[in-house]
């Protein structure tokens, strides 16, 4: 008998001889009965119409299929664009820096996320990233500000004249056109100017006017004078003094027959314009007149 002859018999594939041999075997009757009875077995009822209805109702009707998919796809496209724009602007806004600025005759105080303090003098601006502050303590400065830096990681002040890096200290940075001064009041400040790094210990100043390094005397006090409403100068060209005056009082200074490169040593009060003008005119031997917001300085008796 060949292999799997029972299967062959059931499918009618036995040869005549094999079939006769099998039919004569004693177990044949049992198999024949099994064949007969099993052919009458029935599986549970299954209504394919009903199943198809169920399939269409439950799954296909709600399924995103070809026709119904199209408007949905359009909607998806629009939704995707909106989502991209939203996330994009979210990240853009997040990367935008915090900005604080002061106008002429204005002061401001900023407390940074790490409790460092910045005092902004008139016509100055700082910007920094609040989100990244923990990782990167960096301030962009235009104008003048006094910094009380909380101890911590490196803190840098970037200006267009150079950068000032500290760990924790108090210092003043003045970054005006053609004028860059850093004064350290506490701790140690590192100033990088034209790729050169200068260490500035407490009680020292670093001054560059028009690209020229100027040696300065020791600053007095523990705060820049402007913090006490006084602008003081030591051998500073008059034009910077006038510029400071303009900033502090929001006035327009013009000069007549005055060499504004003459050095000025002295100070003026930031609250009283008349007193301030006298403070400048007396040591510089000049005269002044006020006309509204305009101040004219003139030399000697040349004023007509």
């Amino acid at each position, binding site marked *: 008998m060949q*292999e*799997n*002859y*029972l*299967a*062959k018999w*059931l*499918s009618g594939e036995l040869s005549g001889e094999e079939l006769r041999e099998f039919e004569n075997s004693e*177990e044949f009757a*049992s*198999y024949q*009965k*099994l064949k007969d*009875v*099993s*052919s*009458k*077995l*029935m*599986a*549970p009822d*299954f209504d*394919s*119409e009903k*199943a*198809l209805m*169920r*399939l269409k109702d*439950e*799954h*296909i009707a709600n*399924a995103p*299929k*070809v026709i119904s998919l199209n408007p949905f796809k359009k909607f998806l496209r629009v939704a995707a664009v909106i989502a991209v724009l939203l996330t994009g602007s979210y990240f853009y806004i997040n990367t935008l820096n915090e900005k604080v600025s002061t106008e002429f005759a204005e002061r401001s105080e900023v407390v940074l996320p790490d409790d460092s303090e910045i005092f902004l003098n008139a016509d100055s601006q700082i910007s920094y990233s609040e989100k990244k502050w923990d990782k990167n303590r960096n301030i962009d400065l235009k104008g003048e500000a006094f910094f009380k830096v909380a101890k911590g990681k490196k803190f840098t002040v970037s200006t267009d004249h150079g950068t000032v890096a500290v760990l924790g200290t108090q210092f003043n940075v003045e970054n005006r056109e053609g004028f860059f001064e850093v004064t350290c009041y506490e701790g140690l400040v590192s100033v990088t100017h034209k790729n050169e790094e200068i260490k500035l210990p407490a009680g020292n100043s670093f001054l560059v006017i028009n690209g020229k390094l100027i040696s300065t005397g020791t600053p007095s006090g523990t705060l820049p004078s402007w913090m006490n409403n006084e602008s003081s100068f030591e051998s500073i060209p008059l034009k910077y003094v006038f510029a400071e005056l303009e900033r502090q009082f929001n006035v327009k200074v013009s000069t007549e027959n005055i060499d504004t490169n003459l050095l000025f040593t002295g100070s003026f009060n930031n609250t009283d314009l008349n007193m301030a003008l006298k403070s400048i005119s007396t040591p510089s031997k000049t005269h002044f007149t006020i006309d509204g917001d305009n101040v004219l300085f003139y030399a000697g008796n040349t004023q007509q």
Partner: protein
Amino acid sequence: MSNVCEDHVFSKVFKTHSKTVFNYIFYKFGNEEKAHDAVQEAFVKLWQNCAKVSPEKAKSYVYTVANNLYLNVIKAEKVRLKHADRHVKDRTNESPEFLMEEKEYKDKLDNALNALPENQRTTFLLNRIDGKKYAEIAEMEGVSVKAIEKRMHLALKSLREHIDGI
């Protein structure tokens, strides 16, 4: 070219094969509810992938999906089959002993079927109830025709032994 995505093609495929899918899963696990679910799942999958499955491949696709659905997931239950009493009408004068014997035999057959390994039972019933040729069963199960013949042979042998009490 006809496409399974077309409603009438899909409906035709469904009507042709859903019953076998249902039986196939039922023979394996003996659970009617699961067999109904398997039909739904298999044809939903076919519908979702209608663009990728040609009408010729649709048949083996639904069997494969249905088969994979419960792979190692559910425990087989007793397969309860109905016995068609086709001869009752034309042989009305059967003795009570004969009917008793018939009933006994059917119970034995049921037990014997449930005692079979799942793949032998499925093969046997697909052939006996659904009239599937060995080649078709081989395609559904993804094995050779020879393997199906072997299963069939062993199934018949075990059933007879079980019924005859050998």
